[in-house]
């Protein structure tokens, strides 16, 4: 039997041990997490989800790399948590100090400036086409392309080819023809177009092709439209005609419920014949998704032409203001994880890696040996997409946004456009609010 004194001593000891155990346990949790940030012989590859084709591509390339007999280590594909947007997921990850080795990077300038990324070595960049990447102002390369640098060629329209054939309709070659096409479809009792704004980001799928004619008029030498707005050579009001066109399409030709429709749902709306056409920002990837959902669906793809029949497509901004693959500073500090990341990227930009990427439905990045890569033409409609690359009407334009606060402005602009489309504010009020936000975020 324990005396009171012994009992007190015992309980006090338990309390102290419990306190210590909890504290040490927490510390242990931290160190355990740090150790598994890639593990001793593995490195994590964090990638943005949302596009099924890109998910499949990441899985395919990671699986292929992990099967290599002479790999430096294992790569673990880690999707950004479902339900969280990219910026939130990245900030949460950064706050926990739990960076993966390889990152599917957006908002790159913010993270370069914060010292979170490591330079990509020359042994990787030497495999990539010289035009497909560029150095940051400090002379280092922090970003290499994850897919073909086809800019916003994926911002277009997927359509029901069979419906077009049955109704003697053809792909529009000018803006006026595009409007007439929608009028014809509407007159036949069908809904011409499905689009999505249930999430904020897909709102650009219709907007960017419409505004591209205005954007393309601004000099590439100075950086493009937004750079001109910053320098006072242009203003948001220059987009008034484009916003009016956008509003007209939304009001007259778009399937109801677009406000709460999610991007992925437009595929279902198309294959269920609830709309004849649908907007997309993933081009080839969307064609693959359609084929997966309904293999016998005859899908086609076209770009919205401008008034003169040109396809104005935003060129990839190579380097810091683009998106692509990056290596984290945390991996560099770790050493082993950096070696794995470099080895993985070398495979990513090899001919074998490019073939794996192509087979999964994504167009591979431009590499030095691109001529040896086998293109995947099995997906219905993919020939439409590839044909655009050879079209004489294809005009690349530049619209650089190298300011780390542009993401703040862009989110506001997207939401404001949705509010305008939804009749919550007039076009003029929207322009005034967006200009004020630009002045505050970018100029200020």
């Amino acid at each position, binding site marked *: 039997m324990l005396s009171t004194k012994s009992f*007190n001593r015992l*309980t*006090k000891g338990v*309390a*102290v041990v*419990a*306190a210590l155990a*909890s*504290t040490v346990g*927490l510390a242990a949790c931290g160190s355990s997490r740090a150790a598994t940030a890639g593990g001793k012989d593995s490195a994590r590859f964090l990638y943005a989800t949302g596009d099924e084709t890109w998910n499949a591509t990441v899985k395919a390339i990671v699986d292929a790399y992990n099967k290599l007999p002479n790999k430096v280590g294992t790569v673990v594909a880690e999707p950004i948590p479902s*339900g969280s*947007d990219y*910026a*939130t997921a990245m*900030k*949460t990850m*950064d706050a926990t100090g739990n960076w993966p080795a390889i990152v599917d990077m957006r*908002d790159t300038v*913010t*993270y370069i*400036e*914060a*010292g*979170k990324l490591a330079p990509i070595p020359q042994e990787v960049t030497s495999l990539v086409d010289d035009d497909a990447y560029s150095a940051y102002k400090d002379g280092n390369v922090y970003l290499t392309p994850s897919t073909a640098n086809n800019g916003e060629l994926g911002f277009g329209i997927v359509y029901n080819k069979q419906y077009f054939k049955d109704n003697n309709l053809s792909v529009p070659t000018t803006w006026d023809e595009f409007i007439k096409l929608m009028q014809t479809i509407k007159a036949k009792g069908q809904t011409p177009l499905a689009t999505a*704004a*249930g*999430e*904020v980001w897909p709102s650009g799928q219709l907007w960017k092709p419409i505004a591209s004619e205005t954007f393309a008029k601004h000099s590439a030498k100075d950086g493009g439209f937004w750079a001109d707005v910053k320098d006072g050579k242009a203003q948001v009001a220059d987009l008034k005609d484009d916003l009016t066109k956008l509003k007209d399409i939304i009001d007259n030709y778009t*399937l*109801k*419920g*677009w*406000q*709460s*429709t999610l991007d992925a*749902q437009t595929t*279902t*709306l198309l294959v269920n014949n*609830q709309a004849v056409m649908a907007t997309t920002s993933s081009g080839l990837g969307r064609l693959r998704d359609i084929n997966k959902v309904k293999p016998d669906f005859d899908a086609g793809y076209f770009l919205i032409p401008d008034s003169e029949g040109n396809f104005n497509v935003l060129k990839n901004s190579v380097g810091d203001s683009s998106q692509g693959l990056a290596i984290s500073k945390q991996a560099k500090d770790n050493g082993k994880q950096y070696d794995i990341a470099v080895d993985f990227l070398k495979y990513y930009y090899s001919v074998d890696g490019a073939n794996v990427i192509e087979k999964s439905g994504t167009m591979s990045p431009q590499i030095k040996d691109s001529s040896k890569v086998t293109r995947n033409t099995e997906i219905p409609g993919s020939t439409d997409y590839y044909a655009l690359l050879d079209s004489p009407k294809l005009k690349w334009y530049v619209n650089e946004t190298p300011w*780390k*606060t542009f*993401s*703040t402005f862009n*989110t*506001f602009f997207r*939401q*404001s456009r*949705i*509010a*305008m*489309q*939804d*009749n*919550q*504010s007039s076009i003029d009020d929207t322009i005034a609010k967006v200009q004020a936000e630009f002045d*505050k975020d970018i100029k200020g």
Partner: protein
Amino acid sequence: MSTSLSVAATPSKTSHKSDSAAKSSTMSAVQRRNRWMMFFFILPMLVVFLAIVIIPSLQSIQLSFTDYDGISPTYNYVGVDNYHEIITSGRFWNAVKNTLILGIGSAFIINVISLVMALLLDRIHHFSGFFRTIVYLPSLVSAFIASTIWKYMLNYNFGAVNSILKKAGLEGWVHDWLGDSHIVVWVLLFLICFTLGGNTTLIYLSNLQSVPQELVEAAEVDGASGWQVFRHVTWPMLAGSVTVNFTLSLIGGWVIFDQIQVLTGGGPGFVSETMAFFIYRLGFGEYRAGFGSAAAVLLFIIVMITTVITNKYMRGREIQA
């Protein structure tokens, strides 16, 4: 002085007092030990709580005066610019309006419905366990999951709600429930009330079962009607749980986030943003942690003021009751 005199005059008392002093000294030593023990027991949680709640919360006051983006290692002090921008922003006031509608609205509706449900459950004697489980069940589903289910059910083109309305020949009632800016906040209010009422009902029910039956019977013997019994006997006895439930519902309403994030993402446009969502969107989605912190400080002040006022009113009501 008087103590020493009495000690000298009465040795037996002195001995008794010194025993009692020794006892008291032992007691206080034990108490001191126990206090240390208690402190050690709460220490781990205290450390965690300080590290992940209190210190970051205090730091957000400091950050609210900066242009911190949440990522960069450095930031600049911008004075009260963030507060000025928030207060002059239409987006902020829209979020405040939504928060008031959802916070106060859900607090009232949840309490009324829960009280009615509790009164019904209190009178049910057959299968009472079954009915109580049914009423409480929605509270066991996380707000995220419940909202996801509702999101599918209310989808304009595929959702069960619109499909049923169409099949029932009620085409005119079909709506884009989560995309129509005129009704979306009211739809959110309905969904929030639907999922948050279980705990409130449970508190009312437990309080109802502790109302002395002799008081109810005495009132009935005196000829009071059912309504009069409720108004003059049951209702005053529920005063404490009304205070607790209303305060909890109100606080829950101020910080509604999950439902907004899942169901509308604050849209279409900015129309269904609440204060909590506004803070999240700015702090995380738009890389404006300093600005988001300023909004969080304002939300904290609003929650504190309204909670104190509500509590004061409710407590006063309890005393009167």
